[in-house]
C-alpha cells in the first residue's frame, strides 16, 4: 500500500488580511523525498507551521498517518512521528547540547530511563557530527552547528516524517553532501522527508518530487526536471 503519510488539503492562512497561504494542497507518500521550494516570503515556513501545529490554518484539513490532525496540538503531532527543524535555530539555551537532544527522547519518544536517554542522545549527536560538543552550551555553537543540533533534535523524536526547514543554509559543499547522505540514509530506513531548501543542487539531488510555492499558492508539483522546465516556475522563482 502506498498510502499518503501526510496530507493537507485546501490550506489557507491569513495574517491580518494578508494571505500567506491560499488553498494549498499537499501530499507526502510513505517513504517519499519531496523538495519544497519558493522565493523568500512565499509561505514555505507558514505551511510547515500549519502542518506541525505551530499555527492553526484558517481553512483546510490535515491528516497524518491516517489520523485527522487539523486540531491536534503540536506536541501530540510530534509524539505521533511528525518532526521538524526550525529555519532559524531554536535551541534550549539553558541546556547542554546533549540535554537538548534528550528532550524529544523523553517526551516525543517516551523513554524514562536516564541512562537509555543519554545513550540514545549520544548516538544521535554522533550522526549529526556534534558528539564532541555534547556537554557544551548551545550558546557556544556556530550557526552551522546550531542547524545540525536542530536536525539532531528532530531525529531524536524518532519521526515517521521529517520536515527539514533549511538545514543546509550556510554549510560548505562537503557539509551539504554530508547532510544529504544522512537524509538519504534516514529515508532508506523508512522516514519520509520534506526538504525545504534554497540550495538548488541539494534539492535536485535529493528530491523525487518538487513542489513550488509562490506568494502563498502552489504553482507546480511534479518530477524535479519537469517542474524546473515549467515557464511559470522559471519566471517566478529563478527570475525573468
Amino acid at each position: 500500500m502506498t498510502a499518503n503519510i501526510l496530507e493537507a488539503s485546501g490550506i489557507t492562512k491569513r495574517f491580518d488580511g494578508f494571505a500567506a497561504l491560499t488553498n494549498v494542497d499537499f501530499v507526502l507518500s510513505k517513504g517519499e523525498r519531496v523538495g519544497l521550494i519558493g522565493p523568500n516570503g512565499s509561505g514555505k515556513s507558514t505551511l510547515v507551521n500549519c502542518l506541525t501545529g505551530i499555527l492553526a490554518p484558517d481553512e483546510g484539513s490535515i491528516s497524518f498517518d491516517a489520523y485527522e490532525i487539523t486540531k491536534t496540538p503540536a506536541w501530540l503531532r510530534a509524539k505521533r512521528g511528525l518532526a521538524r527543524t526550525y529555519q532559524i535555530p531554536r535551541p534550549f539555551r539553558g541546556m547542554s547540547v546533549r540535554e537538548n537532544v534528550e528532550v524529544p527522547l523523553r517526551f516525543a519518544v517516551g523513554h524514562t530511563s536516564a541512562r537509555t536517554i543519554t545513550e540514545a542522545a549520544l548516538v544521535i549527536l554522533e550522526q549529526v557530527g556534534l558528539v564532541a560538543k555534547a556537554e557544551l552550551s548551545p550558546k557556544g555553537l556556530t550557526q552551522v552547528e546550531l542547524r545540525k543540533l536542530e536536525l539532531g533534535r528532530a531525529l531524536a523524536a524518532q519521526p515517521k516524517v521529517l520536515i527539514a526547514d533549511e538545514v543546509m543554509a550556510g554549510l560548505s559543499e562537503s557539509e551539504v553532501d554530508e547532510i544529504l547522505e544522512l537524509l538519504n540514509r534516514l529515508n532508506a530506513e523508512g522516514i519520509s522527508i520534506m526538504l525545504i531548501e534554497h540550495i538548488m543542487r541539494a534539492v535536485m539531488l535529493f528530491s523525487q518530487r518538487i513542489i513550488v510555492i509562490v506568494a502563498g499558492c502552489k504553482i507546480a508539483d511534479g518530477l524535479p526536471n519537469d517542474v524546473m522546465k515549467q515557464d511559470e516556475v522559471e519566471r517566478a522563482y529563478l527570475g525573468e
Partner: protein
Amino acid sequence: MLIFATMIFGAHINEYYYLATYTILQFVVLGTAWNILGGYGGYVNFGTAGFFAIGCYTTIVLNKIFPMPLFFEMLVAAVTAGLVGLGTGYLTLRLRGVFFSIATLALAIVLQTLIVNWSFVGGARGVYVIRPAISGMFISYVQFLVVLMIGLATFSVFVAWTVEKSWIGIGLAAIRDDEAAAETSGVPSLRLKLIATTMSGAIMGMAGAPFPFYVTYVDPATAFGLAIAVNSIAMPLVGGTAAWWGPVVGAILLGSAQQILTVTISSAANLFIVGILLVVFLTVAPRGVVGIARSLKQRRR
C-alpha cells in the same frame, strides 16, 4: 551586642524570635512555590498574594462555620488555592510573558475586591481570629506555628526538588527556553504549565492558611499585601531560580535582613532594602546565589 547575645542565649527565648522565624519560613514556602512556575517554567506570577490570601480566608471561613484542626484547614486551603491556580492557568496560560504576569496581578485584585465586599469574613474592616488552646507538647501557640511552618517549608522544598529532577522540571525548562521548540519536541506545554500553576498555587495557599492564627487579626490589606507579592519574586531571584535551594537561600537572606532592619532601623525600610538588593543582584548577579555558586564551581574545575 551584649543585649543581643543575652536575648538569644537567655533562659527563655524571646517570643519575637519565633515570630521572626515564622516570617522567614513563610517566605521560604512562598518563594519555593513561586519558583515552580516562575523559575522552572519562566512564567512570572505577580499574584502570589492572591493565592496566599485564599489560604488565609479559607482558614477564617472554616473557623467560622466548621472549626477543625489547623492541619486540615491547610489541606482545604491547598485544594482551594490549587483549584484557583488551575482555573487561572487554564484562562491565562495561552498568554505569553508580560501578559500572563498582568493577568495574575489582575486575579489578585479581583480576589481582593471580592473579600473587601464579603462581610462574612470581615470585609474591609478585617476580622479577629482567636487562637485555639494548644496541646501539651508546646510552650506557646507561636512555637507550635513555627514547628508547623518548619514542616511545611520542608514539604514544599521537597516538592520543588522532586519537580526539578523529574520530567516535569525538564519539560518546564524546555518551555522556559523556547515554548514552540518544546512543543515540537513533544512537550505537552499546556498540561505541564497547568500542573505547575496548580502545585504553585496550592503551596501558596498552604502558606497562607496558618497566617490568621499568627497575626490574630486579618484584613484584606495585610493578606493581599504588596510585601507578599514582591518578596515572593525577589527572594527566588536573589537566591537563584535555577535550583530548589535558590529560593531557600534568598528567603533566609532577604527575610533575615528585613527582620534585622525592622528591629534596628524601622519597618518602613523593609521593602526599601528588598528593592535595593533586587536591583543589585539583577545587575551584578542575574542568576542569583545559585549562579554565583555554579560559576565558582566551574572555575575550580
